[in-house]
Each structure stands twice: as structure tokens, then as C-alpha cells.
């Protein structure tokens, strides 16, 4: 702990000095972050309320089990751990940049700001991959109209309900129209060329149903629609904070590089940007908890 030399009996509130022994900008950054914490908190609590109110919320280990270039390997928690460690590490480089700023070491600030920016971009790239994977990866689920379809995870569709019993699945297949059957058959053999897709179009409904039921299809009920809205809404809002944090860090890097802070005699702006960046990491700790871990 630092031992800030504050004389005993200091009259903080008599005017002429900051009662919080801190600059206006830093105190206001703290209050902004506190209000932002309430915004994120409200989102996460709203998500928790809805999740508690339904029986069939998606199991995160089921939804988030893929890793880039790992194909269909079942790897729950792996990718999100990588994202978490990227963000923790970029928080460390940020606090090291602030530290170098206290020592008035311009080169050190530049180096660590650059590493922090790289960490932020790496995190955003991971998130872009994850979103793409969810928005394009189709899974066969029972729709509310009693038919089966291959649907992705979006704000309007959620294929992550309970497993569908085999008899129910066969009954639903009988009711499923041709175009949806073609889509399901194609999704079962994806990786195959588009040529096979046209072959499915030429098949009759009965042939398609036979092919699909012979393939050992694993179908589910549809899950609560709210899942996609909360997931994309909250991780999107957090991702936007990361993005704006990267932009702020880039501005700070440029200002350091051209010597603005050296002229000013202190690196307090790096501290304020650092507060914002650590807050982004702090929010991720809770997003990680609420969406992926439990």
C-alpha cells in the first residue's frame, strides 16, 4: 500500500484543495464508470430474471463449445477462457503503462499502450468469430408451428431447447415442407459441395424424410427467444465498450508518441483511459460469469 503523505488534521473541505485529493477529471471518470456499472448491472439482472423465469434456458456448455479451426470438437469453456485471459493480460499492460507514466518514461508508456491496443483488438476479433459462429451455425430444432428447420442462433431464433424425443421428431418431419427438409438434409452433410444441395432439391419429401431419419439426426425443441437478444445485446454492449476503449487507447498512444503528455508534465490522461479500460475488463468478469460459467 502506498503511504500518501497527508498531514494529520488536514481540513479537506475548507476550499483551496480537492477534498478527494484527486483531479476533477479522474473523479468524474469514476462517477461515469459507476453509472455505467449500473447500466450493465441492470442488463445482467434483467437477463437473470428472465433466465430464472423459464424452464428451458440454454445450457452455456452446449452453446459455446467450439473453437476456431477445431471443427466440431466439443470444447466447452475453452474459447471464452482464451478471451478472458486476453482481457486480463491487456489490463496488466494497461496498468504497466500507467506505471511508466508515473515515472515519466515516454518509451515505456508507448510500448505498453501498444500492447494494450493489440490485446483489445485480439479480444474484438475473438468476439467477431464467436458471433459469426452463432449467427451462421445452424442446428435442427422444432419450430412453434410443429415443423422442423435448421436455424441459427439470432435475436429471433434459438435452437438450444431440450432434446427432442425420436417419435416427436419423426412426427414433425412428416409435417415439414419441402424447402425446410432440403435445408435440414443439407445441414447434415455440410462440408459437402453445393452440387449435393441441388440433388436434395430434386428428391421427393418422402425420400428426404427417409434420408434424414436414417442419418441419426439430433434435434431439439426451440429455446426461449430471449436468449439471443440478451446474449447479443449484452456482449454487444460490452464489445462496443471494448471498441471505444481501443479507440481511446489509440488516441492516447498517438498523444504520447507526439509528446503531448511530456510537455504537460504528467501522464494523467493515461490514468483516466486506464480506468475506462480496467472497467471494460471488470464488466467482462461478470459477463463471463453470467453467460458462460453458470
Amino acid at each position, binding site marked *: 500500500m502506498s503511504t500518501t503523505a497527508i498531514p494529520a488534521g488536514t481540513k*479537506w473541505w475548507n476550499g483551496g484543495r480537492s477534498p*478527494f485529493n484527486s483531479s476533477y477529471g479522474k473523479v468524474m471518470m469514476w462517477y461515469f464508470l*459507476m453509472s455505467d456499472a449500473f447500466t450493465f448491472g441492470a442488463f445482467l439482472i434483467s437477463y437473470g430474471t428472465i433466465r*430464472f423465469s423459464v424452464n428451458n434456458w440454454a445450457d452455456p456448455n452446449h452453446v459455446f463449445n467450439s473453437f476456431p479451426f477445431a471443427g466440431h470438437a466439443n470444447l466447452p469453456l475453452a474459447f471464452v477462457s482464451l478471451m478472458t485471459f486476453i482481457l486480463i493480460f491487456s489490463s496488466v499492460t494497461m496498468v504497466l503503462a500507467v506505471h511508466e507514466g508515473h515515472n515519466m518514461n515516454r518509451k515505456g508508456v508507448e510500448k505498453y499502450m501498444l500492447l494494450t491496443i493489440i490485446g483489445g483488438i485480439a479480444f474484438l476479433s475473438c468476439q467477431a468469430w464467436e458471433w459469426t459462429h452463432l449467427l451462421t451455425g445452424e442446428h435442427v430444432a422444432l419450430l412453434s408451428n410443429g415443423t422442423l428447420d435448421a436455424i441459427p442462433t439470432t435475436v429471433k431464433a434459438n435452437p438450444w431447447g431440450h432434446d427432442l424425443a425420436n417419435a416427436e421428431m419423426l412426427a414433425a418431419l412428416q409435417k415439414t415442407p419441402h424447402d425446410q427438409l432440403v435445408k435440414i438434409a443439407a445441414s447434415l452433410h455440410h462440408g459437402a459441395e453445393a452440387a449435393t444441395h441441388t440433388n436434395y432439391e430434386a428428391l421427393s419429401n418422402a425420400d428426404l424424410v427417409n434420408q434424414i431419419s436414417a442419418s441419426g439426426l439430433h434435434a431439439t425443441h426451440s429455446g426461449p427467444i430471449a436468449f439471443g437478444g440478451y446474449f447479443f445485446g449484452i456482449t454487444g454492449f460490452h464489445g462496443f465498450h471494448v471498441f471505444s476503449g481501443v479507440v481511446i487507447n489509440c488516441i492516447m498512444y498517438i498523444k504520447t508518441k507526439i509528446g503531448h503528455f511530456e510537455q504537460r508534465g504528467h501522464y494523467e490522461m493515461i490514468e483516466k483511459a486506464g480506468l475506462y479500460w*480496467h472497467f471494460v475488463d471488470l464488466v467482462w468478469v461478470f459477463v463471463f460469469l453470467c453467460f458462460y460459467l453458470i
Partner: protein
Amino acid sequence: MSTHTNSEISFPAEHSGGTKRIWKIFWVLSFLTLIELALGYFLYAKHPDLSHTSILATKIVIGVLTLLKAYYIVSVFMHLGDEVRNMIMTIVVPLALFVWFIIAFLWDGDSWKNLRNTNAGSKPDTHEQQVVPAAKEPGQKD
């Protein structure tokens, strides 16, 4: 006043010397995250065998570890621990509202689920019995 570049700051904040503490906290955060992941994996791997109480208990432990991580980030990385006590209080005390927010809203969500499952109390809650056999269907893939 003339000796200060920024007259607002009476005593320039002084942060502890080396980078040792920063790296120590990095290892603490990594370690806590690894424990969380181990518990999360435990929940995933043992899910069908666990009782409701032990699942809830594990989740609460993960939540407490998360709060511990938050404490280290705020106190050390954001240097809030080095600020004047009054300032710490203006930030931490309002956030205490979250304690009640979380209890009240999750309670509400749970009550909502019970009302839905029991048709507002007019039929017994049969939901739990319906779900358990479906989850243990043989030959299913994750």
C-alpha cells in the same frame, strides 16, 4: 500553489514503487480464473449426477470468486484502494444497492416460473419430473 502544475491536486497521489505488485495481482487473477473454470467444468461434467443444492452451491462459490476478482481489479489495477476514503465511499456505497436488486429480481423471476409451471397455483408442479428422464436419453451427443 505556484509549485503545482495542477492547482487542484494538493497532494499528488503516490503509487507504490515497483511493478511487483501488478504482476502478483495478475497471477492472483489468473489463478482465480482457473479455479472458476475448473468449477465450471465440474458443473458441466457432473451435471446429471448433482443435486440442485450442490449445483447452486458451486455456482455461488464461482460468484464469490468473481467478486474477489472484481475487488482486485478495482482496488489494485484501478488504484481505488489508494484513494481517499471519502471518495471510495461515494463509489462503493451506491453500488451496495445491487445486493437488493439481485435478490429481488431473481426472486421475482423464480416466482414467475413457479406461477407458470403451476398455472398460478391451480395444478401441482410436474415440470421437474418431466425433464429428468429426457436429459438422460442414451446415445445422445453433446
